[in-house]
């Protein structure tokens, strides 16, 4: 019961509007909500609406909303004293009173809106009985009996009442649009709206436009906009199909009469964004004649200076045309469309800088791209439209080439980078990317002339001293156009054009501009990117002679300015990698550069590594291993000598901390450079196509001899960093790079400078293990790397490895460090992975070792208890591979089977898997299932016995922990046996897990 007087409640409402502190407002709101939801809610709503205060009236209307929602269940009942019908009557009366008090609706619009919203809410719940609330509203507002609205009645109404009707219609459809689509009554509601409410609204809207166009335009457009949204939703959710032609014709009338007021254009554009299907053919024709006829021209004449207005118009034009781009594209054939395309071109070429001054060209680039795609993809459709007439098709093709060439010219101008681009760089880059896409697309249509025009603009620009900005735009677009070129598909014309570019002063001019600093950065960057993108040219015999000039230019960019060094080194790296075989003569040019790169510790590490990798890529392409060796020895010796000096400096305890950090970064980079040599020297995938059998023989023999001692230099360098230097060997990065180097040649099919004998990585691991006491922490950190190196060795060298070294290394790395290994999930995972690799590749190296049964199996069993999913995953893989033993020989299989059958292993494994599976989170169950399944498949005869024994133990354990025994375990065992470990087994085990954990699988219910 509420024990507050009317005055107190009024005062409470008023204080809500005067309170300032958020806490006070929250407190007042809280109190008010209690009142609104109290048993006297309806009475309070009535009482507040009767107050002269606007605040009270609004809260009164709001209280109705609260109670309509609160009592939705009882309001529909006819036995209830308060029903929707009684509330509706009250609300309509209040509406009438409020409108009477304020005929101009100036101050009470919020209250009226809220009352209308309440009526809309009632309508959506009672539409079966209350068919057309608009009629009821008119009846109450005019004190006339309710009748179907028509223009005669509407003529008697003040335009403010018409505004209320429009608002009510708008609120009602907005309300329905927003509501949950799963409401079962929605189909019915949509039908009711279509049958009555829509027709009445159309009558009101038509009248409003006819009679009170200016006064009601804004409300009318809001109403129209809401109906566009609603119709789209209604057509999606029901079978109702709207013919909104009358409404839309009125909208177009408003478009014309308002001379294209922004809001009208927005609403028309909304149609195409929301539901273009609303536009019937006739309407389309009307709109087309408006947009491309005198109205459109007049609009542009009037608003031509207003970028916003023109852009709004352009967007409408684009949305309108997008609906049927294929037909529009085909209409290019017809000269009658010429004007239309001229119009579109003129809109696209609106003066000014894109983004800053105008957005027209930005919006239009997508439009042109879509249209170009029609020409690329819909050729068949065009030919159908033109009845397969070859001359007509040729005409369409010619006109499309001409059209897109003109559009290309516009966008060439538009992609020029403005001086003040910094403030909107992202936006401008995005626009340029869109233009680049457009050029890429239209190359399929315009073909070589597009490329040729760009080239000519460069050549002419260089001779007429036009701006570097023009040159930049052309190069940028050439990059885009040539994105899909390859040396196999490139035409002679393109090659000739590129030769013209290379023979021009382009590189000289750009090189000179480097010294001008920031202002010319874009032409330089784009030139570098362009040179990196035309690798198809360098790989062609025509382009090869230019390689050295280009590399010299890029080296110049890299060395002469920090600003371009990174991007230039990337280009060098790409070219050297892609065109390695043509660059052998260029190797001497690297000599001084490499010395600088290696010796100067201020060189950016990535640049150093890229250049060293580039050199190695070229060296790799030399077929003669002796010459390769010669080059490698030179650079590796250089790195080694410099490294030893730097390591000595680094190991000096007096070195200041800051200097030490710099020195460490330099040293890491030097070791990474060795890795980059390894990467560069990697044989290409198609070895058999590059070398014949006798060449392969020569290479193998050479690297077995390794007369220049390349292997040893690499091994010594790795050792100097990762083993001998007390300080450096603590660095994880150094160990990582050392491991990477030792692994880099492991996948090679024939010998090479980085293909080491098996004992090299094994010795490295041994050396690291023997030194573990010196720094246990860094040893722990490096263990995953060492296991990973071992795994890589097992993976690549399993055929040539012997059992003895495998046993020794597992003893040393795994068994002797078991406590440390178990302390860290990452180490656990990497250790399990290494062992699993051996089981997968050559189990005979492992399964007969005593340490396998004595240590590794208990270790792997233990990991089934892990809570870390990735450790469990590695454990699952180990057990599944071991039990399946796909690569095992007969002896291996027998040996493993004996472990399972003649020792408790099988039962213990099953017990451990089952026990931990039942306790595990759902996300891990699948991993245990795989282990259980493979046991069922391989040891079917023993499963019943093992499982029965397992469940006895599990139940015992569960009882000790106060849990229920596993229900129906015997049934479970039978079911599992029936599945024989096949697909159905997953379901059976999953069900057991759900049952034991008291859960239900809703996916299957």
């Amino acid at each position, binding site marked *: 019961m509420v024990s507050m007087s009317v005055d107190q409640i009024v005062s409470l409402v008023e204080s809500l509007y005067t309170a300032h502190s958020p806490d006070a407002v929250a407190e007042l709101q809280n109190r008010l909500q209690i009142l609104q939801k109290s048993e006297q809610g309806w009475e309070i709503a009535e009482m507040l609406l009767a107050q002269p205060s606007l605040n009270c009236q609004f809260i009164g209307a709001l209280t109705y909303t609260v109670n309509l929602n609160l009592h939705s269940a009882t309001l529909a009942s006819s036995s209830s004293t308060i029903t929707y019908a009684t509330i509706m009557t009250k609300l309509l009366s209040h509406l009438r009173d409020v409108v009477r008090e304020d005929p101009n609706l100036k101050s009470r619009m919020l209250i009226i809106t809220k009352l209308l919203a309440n009526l809309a809410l009632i309508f959506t719940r009672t539409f079966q009985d209350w068919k057309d609330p608009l009629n009821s509203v008119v009846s109450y507002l005019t004190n006339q009996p309710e009748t179907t609205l028509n223009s005669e009645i509407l003529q008697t109404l003040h335009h403010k009442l018409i505004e209320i009707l429009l608002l009510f219609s708008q609120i009602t459809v907005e309300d329905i649009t927003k509501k949950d689509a799963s409401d079962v009554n929605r189909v019915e509601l949509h039908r009711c709206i279509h049958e009555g409410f829509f027709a009445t609204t159309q009558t009101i809207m038509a009248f409003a436009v006819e009679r009170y166009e200016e006064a009601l335009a804004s409300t009318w457009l809001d109403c129209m906009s809401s109906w566009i949204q609603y119709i789209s939703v209604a057509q999606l959710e029901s079978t109702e199909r709207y013919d909104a032609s009358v409404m839309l014709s009125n909208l177009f009338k408003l478009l014309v009469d308002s001379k294209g007021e922004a809001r009208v254009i927005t609403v028309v554009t909304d149609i195409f964004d929301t539901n273009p299907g609303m536009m019937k053919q006739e309407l389309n024709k009307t709109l087309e004649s408006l947009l491309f006829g005198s109205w459109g021209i007049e609009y542009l004449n009037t608003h031509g200076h207003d970028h916003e207005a023109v852009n709004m118009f352009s967007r409408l034009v684009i949305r309108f045309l*997008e609906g049927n781009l*294929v037909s529009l594209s085909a209409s290019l054939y017809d000269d009658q469309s010429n004007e239309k395309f001229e119009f579109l071109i003129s809109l696209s070429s609106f003066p000014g800088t894109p983004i800053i001054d105008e957005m027209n060209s930005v919006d239009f680039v*997508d439009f042109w*791209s*879509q249209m170009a*795609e029609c020409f*690329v*993809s*819909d050729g*068949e*459709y065009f030919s159908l439209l033109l009845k397969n007439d070859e001359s007509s098709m040729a005409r369409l093709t010619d006109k499309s080439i001409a059209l897109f060439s003109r559009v290309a010219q516009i966008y060439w101008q538009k992609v020029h980078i403005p001086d003040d681009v910094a403030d909107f760089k*992202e*936006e401008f*880059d*995005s626009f340029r*990317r*869109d233009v680049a*896409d457009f050029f*890429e697309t239209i190359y*399929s249509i315009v073909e070589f002339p597009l490329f040729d025009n760009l080239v000519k603009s460069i050549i002419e620009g260089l001779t007429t001293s036009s701006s570097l900005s023009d040159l930049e735009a052309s190069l940028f677009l050439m990059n885009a156009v040539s*994105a*899909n070129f390859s040396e196999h*598909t490139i035409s002679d014309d393109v090659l000739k054009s590129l030769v013209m570019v290379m023979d021009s002063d382009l590189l000289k001019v750009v090189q000179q501009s480097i010294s001008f600093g920031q202002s010319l950065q874009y032409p330089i960057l784009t030139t570098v990117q362009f040179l990196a993108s035309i690798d198809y040219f360098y790989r062609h015999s025509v382009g090869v002679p230019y390689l050295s000039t280009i590399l010299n230019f890029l080296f110049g960019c890299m060395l002469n300015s920090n600003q371009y060094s*990174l*991007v230039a080194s990337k280009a060098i790296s790409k070219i050297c990698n892609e065109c390695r075989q043509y660059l052998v003569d260029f190797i001497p040019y690297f000599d001084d550069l490499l010395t600088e790169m290696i010796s100067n510790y201020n060189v950016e*590490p*990535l640049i150093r590594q890229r250049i060293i990798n580039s050199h190695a890529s070229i060296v790799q392409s030399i077929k003669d291993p002796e010459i390769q060796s010669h080059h490698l020895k030179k650079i590796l010796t250089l790195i080694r000598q410099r490294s030893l000096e730097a390591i000595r400096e680094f190991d000096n305890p007096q070195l200041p901390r800051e200097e030490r950090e710099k020195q460490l970064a330099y040293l890491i980079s030097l070791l990474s450079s060795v890795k980059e040599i390894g990467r560069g020297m990697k044989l290409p995938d198609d070895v058999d196509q590059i070398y014949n059998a006798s060449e392969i023989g020569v290479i193998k023999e050479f690297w077995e001899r390794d007369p220049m001692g390349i292997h040893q230099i690499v091994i010594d360098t790795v050792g100097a960093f990762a083993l001998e230097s007390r300080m450096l060997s603590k660095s*994880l*990065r150094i160990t*990582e790079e050392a491991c990477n180097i030792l692994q880099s040649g492991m996948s090679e099919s024939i010998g090479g400078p980085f293909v080491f004998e098996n004992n090299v990585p094994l010795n490295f691991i041994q050396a690291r293990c023997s030194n573990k006491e010196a720094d246990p922490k860094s040893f722990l*950190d490096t263990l*995953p790397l060492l296991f*990973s190196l071992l795994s890589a060795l097992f993976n690549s060298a399993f055929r040539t490895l012997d059992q003895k070294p495998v046993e020794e290394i597992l003893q040393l790395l795994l068994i002797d460090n078991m406590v440390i290994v178990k302390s860290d999930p*990452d180490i656990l*995972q*990497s250790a399990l992975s290494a062992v699993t690799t051996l089981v997968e590749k050559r189990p005979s190296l492992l399964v007969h070792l005593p340490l396998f049964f004595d240590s590794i199996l208990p270790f792997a069993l233990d990991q089934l208890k892990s809570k870390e*999913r*990735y450790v469990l995953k590695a454990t699952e893989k180990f057990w599944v591979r071991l039990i399946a033993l796909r690569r095992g020989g007969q002896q291996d299989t027998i040996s493993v089977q004996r472990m399972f059958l003649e020792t408790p292993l099988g039962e213990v494994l099953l017990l451990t898997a089952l026990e931990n599976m039942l306790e595990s989170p759902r996300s891990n169950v699948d991993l245990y299932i795989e282990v259980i399944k493979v046991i069922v498949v391989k040891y079917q005869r023993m499963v019943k016995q093992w499982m029965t024994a397992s469940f006895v133990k599990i139940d015992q354990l569960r009882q000790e922990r106060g849990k229920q025994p596993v229900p129906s375990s015997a049934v479970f065992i039978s079911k599992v046996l029936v599945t024989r470990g096949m697909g159905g087994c997953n379901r059976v085990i999953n069900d057991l897990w759900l049952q034991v954990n008291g859960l239900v699988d809703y996916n299957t219910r």
Partner: protein
Amino acid sequence: MPEQSLCLQRLQQERKQWRKDHPFGFFAKPKKDADGYDLYKWVCGIPGKQGTIWEGATYPITVTFTQDYPAKAPKVKFTEDFYHPNVYPSGTVCLSILNDEQDWKPSISLKEILLGVQELLTTPNPLSPAQEPAYRAYMKNREEYDMKVKEQAKHFS
């Protein structure tokens, strides 16, 4: 016009939608071959977020759709050996919205996928490790992780 499969219709729609509205710094376009565009294979770029260790570079990815799209999620791949805890050594991204059995919904747009991957770059999911080196460094040695990510950013800049 020849009838298109639901998948192709949707991919056309995605292309159109992307053109109309795409976030700055991203790019996405179907691969082009001799026959035109292959809507099943997209080449995309994801910019590293400003103010993070990923900034300054646009990371290339490929998005491959199958004919079951949108019922099935596309496969998103970075380059091989991309350094991130939730990217497999093959480059495949491990992300719940790209997993049919997790959060994939047919309504997820290409834009949402790319924004999701961008978000993943800066906020890896430690519960779904996909590669050892980045995961290990992310969990245990954040300094090393940051340094490697920055090096990678330079590589892609």
